[in-house]
């Protein structure tokens, strides 16, 4: 195997359209260990991005010593990306791991035993419940846990405590994917699959830097791009990324203008008659409104708003309108930007207008940012109800009450579930007094960190459950050491609905426990009971939780009813729904154009895309969607913070190839850490010249909310824009609540979110750049 730090995507295995993606087995082992030395290979899948590549964990002397791609896995056919190869096991097997619970005593975190730590949590929880009730409790979880853990957390929070304040960092990564699918189709559920890339004639990447964020999927696409019958590639991204370099059309839109571009593309399809009218008539509703909304978005107007070439808009629309098969993928360039849900819905609309869904090579892939985000959406550890149930549908609440054998009134369905940013707002205002954070690091990953530090440092009782003493854990009242990947068994589902099992390969370090065991321990301590006085969470193993979830999913779109641990152990990735009728899974949804929008079945009655106002049951029924998809639309509106004289640059933040999240794992993989050890600010050459900045110079980036210092990279951003990767916190100062020097991109970002998906806007903020005089050493 080549040096996979520099050769990010590995060797090419070109394929023609309709071919079978060739195998290529990637492997990484600890220095001095050969495949012959490995004692056991343990089945798993990678959690270092949302792709979900099947892999086996190499075990020797009770330690994880490497990883190997599974050749027959449907997702990756043996391949792994740089993060998976190194951070998956090196990010776990590390001396910094938390090995014992910690509690705060006289202001300091000190080691303790599990009983003492859990007693403190239970005691505070009970006293707040009796004093103020369930609304005093909030839970903020992850896109990193396993299905079983989200489901247990959901039951604990929604039926045990009865709080609507539950969300995950999935709000930052995948909320808009889920929301756009709900708004268009009536329910969450990825329509297409990765194999559609093998079959397609044109690929549109909308704000999806696939080359860096899903390297193995990009390898798959590169194998098509370098094979016969090369598909056409259209890239929508303000930066000249690797994807843009390979693209036939690159639309480098100005930040905050995605919706104008999408309206323009839809208008072009209509103007040229590239619309499958029969499909639109039979299977959709809302075309007249859509047509009226986009009417004024001529290529010239779009070119002006977005600062792209009108002819490029026309050409992109032509590729969409005339290709026989089109795959579109969408990610953070849309989800974390202005008008996120509206723009993502427009991608769905393009496919519906051409009837390009549910057939090989015709797919929408509303992507995820994290490996198990999908399970949080399905199982309801976040702001959703389990099984894609609708909180506005009393029948769905009754179903859950029956499943859990509880009074339906316990389940919080009286208002929209509280999204992450609102949970932190309630904590800031002091009405959430108990906040339990699991497997996520909001002290680095939420917007406007100065404010988040105040919230975390406030009076809220804070429980933090993680692998390491993260920047967030430093604020905790109780820190619970968690077992992670390879140290516990569980299942998870990737962005194309592929379910994998991940087995326990080694023992967790010290006293660390699986997240599931921690949640179950809390539930026991709290004495949560069902209506018959039996334990509400009666489980003692992940398999028992999985079996309970299977019943919860039965008959819903995310149907796992024919899946079990036994079948998953025999499988190489199987896509839900998996039922008696389709025991081998379902590669594509909506092949029959029957959409889950029927009011009694749908996950939502929908929202207005400009305001987020709920449509409500009555108005939704009056619209009579009844199995048709809904073509939702919205006019473009300008972003809320534009560059001005004081803050002349447009800031965008994002994920990069060598790091993941806030580097809890990747910073502990030496090769990945060395490849990108420090934060940088990427500028256009012309701006660097104006500011007399060269590569490696120090620059201070300042917004209305905070500032950071970074090394200058001269890169491929638009003039007037600056890009800062969002990974860098102060992890090396473990235990410190405030960094000695500011590096986190979120020092600069603003507290704002999409009105429908509530996903924070990380990609639109105004900043100014100041040269840091080396002699002064970065003082302000």
């Amino acid at each position: 195997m080549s040096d996979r730090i520099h050769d990010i995507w590995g060797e090419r295995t070109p394929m023609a359209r309709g071919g079978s993606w060739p195998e290529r087995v990637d492997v990484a082992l600890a220095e001095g260990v050969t495949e012959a030395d490995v004692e056991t290979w343990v089945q798993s899948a990678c959690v270092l991005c949302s792709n979900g590549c099947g892999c086996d964990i190499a075990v020797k002397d009770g330690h994880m010593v490497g990883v190997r791609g599974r050749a027959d896995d449907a997702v990756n056919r043996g391949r792994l990306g740089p993060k998976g190869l190194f951070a998956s096991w090196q990010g776990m097997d590390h001396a910094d791991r938390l090995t014992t619970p910690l509690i705060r005593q006289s202001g300091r975190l000190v080691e303790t035993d599990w009983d003492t730590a859990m007693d403190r949590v239970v005691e505070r929880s009970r006293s707040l419940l009796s004093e103020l009730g369930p609304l005093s409790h909030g839970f903020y979880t992850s896109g990193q846990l396993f299905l079983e853990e989200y489901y247990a957390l959901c039951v604990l929070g929604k039926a045990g405590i009865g709080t609507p304040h539950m969300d995950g960092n999935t709000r930052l990564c995948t909320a808009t994917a889920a929301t756009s699918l709900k708004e268009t189709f009536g329910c969450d559920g990825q329509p297409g699959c990765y194999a559609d890339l093998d079959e397609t004639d044109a690929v549109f990447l909308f704000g999806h830097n696939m080359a860096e964020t899903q390297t193995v999927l990009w390898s798959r696409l590169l194998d098509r791009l370098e094979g016969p019958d090369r598909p056409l590639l259209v890239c929508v991204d303000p930066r000249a990324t690797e994807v843009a370099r390979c693209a036939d059309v690159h639309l480098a839109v100005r930040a905050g203008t995605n919706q104008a571009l999408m309206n323009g593309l839809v208008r072009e399809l209509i103007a040229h008659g590239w619309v499958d009218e029969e499909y639109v008539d039979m299977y959709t509703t809302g075309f007249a409104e859509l047509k009226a909304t986009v009417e004024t978005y001529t290529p010239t107007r779009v070119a002006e708003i977005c600062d792209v070439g009108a002819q490029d808009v026309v050409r992109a629309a032509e590729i969409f309108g005339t290709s026989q098969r089109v795959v579109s993928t969408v990610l953070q360039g849309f989800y974390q930007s202005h008008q996120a849900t509206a723009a993502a819905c427009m991608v769905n609309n393009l496919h519906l207008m051409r009837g390009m869904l549910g057939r090989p090579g015709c797919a929408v892939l509303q992507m995820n940012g994290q490996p198990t985000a999908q399970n949080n959406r399905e199982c309801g550890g976040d702001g959703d109800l389990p099984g894609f149930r609708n909180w506005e549908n009393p029948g769905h609440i009754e179903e859950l009450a029956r499943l859990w054998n509880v009074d339906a009134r316990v389940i919080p369905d009286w208002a929209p579930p509280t999204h992450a940013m609102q949970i932190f707002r309630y904590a800031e205002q002091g009405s959430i007094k108990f906040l339990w954070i699991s497997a996520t690091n909001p002290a680095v990953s939420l917007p406007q960190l100065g404010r988040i530090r105040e919230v975390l440092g406030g009076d809220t009782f804070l429980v933090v459950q993680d692998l390491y003493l993260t920047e967030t854990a430093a604020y905790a009242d109780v820190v619970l050491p968690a077992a992670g990947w390879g140290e516990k068994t569980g299942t998870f589902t990737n962005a194309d609905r592929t379910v994998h099992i991940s087995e326990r390969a080694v023992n967790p370090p010290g006293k660390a426990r699986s997240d599931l065991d921690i949640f179950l321990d809390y539930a026991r301590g709290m004495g949560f009971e069902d209506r018959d006085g039996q334990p509400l969470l009666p489980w003692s193993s992940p398999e028992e939780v999985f079996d309970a979830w299977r019943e919860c999913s039965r008959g819903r779109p995310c149907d796992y009813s024919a899946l079990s641990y036994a079948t998953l152990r025999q499988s190489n990735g199987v896509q839900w729904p998996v039922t008696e009728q389709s025991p081998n899974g379902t590669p594509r949804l909506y092949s029959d154009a029957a959409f889950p929008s029927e009011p009694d079945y749908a996950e939502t009655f929908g929202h207005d895309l400009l305001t987020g106002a709920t449509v409500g049951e009555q108005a939704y029924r009056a619209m009579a969607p009844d199995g048709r998809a809904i073509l939702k639309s919205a006019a473009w509106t300008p972003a809320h913070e534009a560059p001005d004289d004081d803050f002349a640059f447009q800031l965008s933040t994002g994920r990069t190839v060598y790091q993941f999240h806030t580097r809890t794992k990747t910073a502990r993989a030496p090769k990945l850490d060395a490849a990108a050890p420090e934060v940088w600010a990427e500028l256009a050459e012309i701006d660097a010249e104006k500011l007399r900045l060269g590569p490696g110079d120090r620059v201070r980036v300042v917004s209305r909310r905070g500032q950071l210092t970074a090394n200058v990279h001269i890169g491929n951003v638009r003039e007037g824009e600056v890009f800062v990767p969002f990974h860098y916190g102060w992890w090396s100062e473990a235990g410190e609540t405030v960094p000695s020097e500011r590096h986190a991109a979120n020092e600069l970002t603003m507290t704002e979110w999409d009105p429908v998906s509530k996903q924070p806007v990380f990609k639109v903020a105004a900043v100014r750049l100041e040269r840091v005089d080396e002699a002064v050493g970065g003082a302000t």
Partner: protein
Amino acid sequence: VNLSSYLGLLHEAERTLADAFRQVASAHGDEPDVHFLCLTLAQQCDAHQDKLSPVIRRYGESSTDHEPERLQAQGPGDARTGPMGLLRDLQDVHMLGTFVVETWKMVGQAGQALHDLELLEIVQTCSAQTSVQTSWLETRMKQAAPQVLVVAGR
């Protein structure tokens, strides 16, 4: 005709609603969704006033000053602060919004009787937007109410 009075009333009410949205936006800047959306919706109200111009040219606009005192839209008064203040402010704006929606409806009824297609189109566009404004206010109030009324301090 009395339609001119109602057009004057509507014009004035949209102006009051725009002011109310701006006032709530500035008083509740720490609630970013409320802040930004209220500014956007204030602009929508401004646009509604502009849209009324051609029909006001046609039918006139009587100042509501000469009308009975009850035929006026009242603004919400001074904005409040804190979680409870937010809920109360949103509810005041909601009341004003439903007043505007109903006024559009009545003007629309007159448009039907007059066979004024231009007026009817304006009513359709604007009243639909104002209805969404009130739906959003209700959605946001329903979200806020349990926390405000059960656990929050003032």
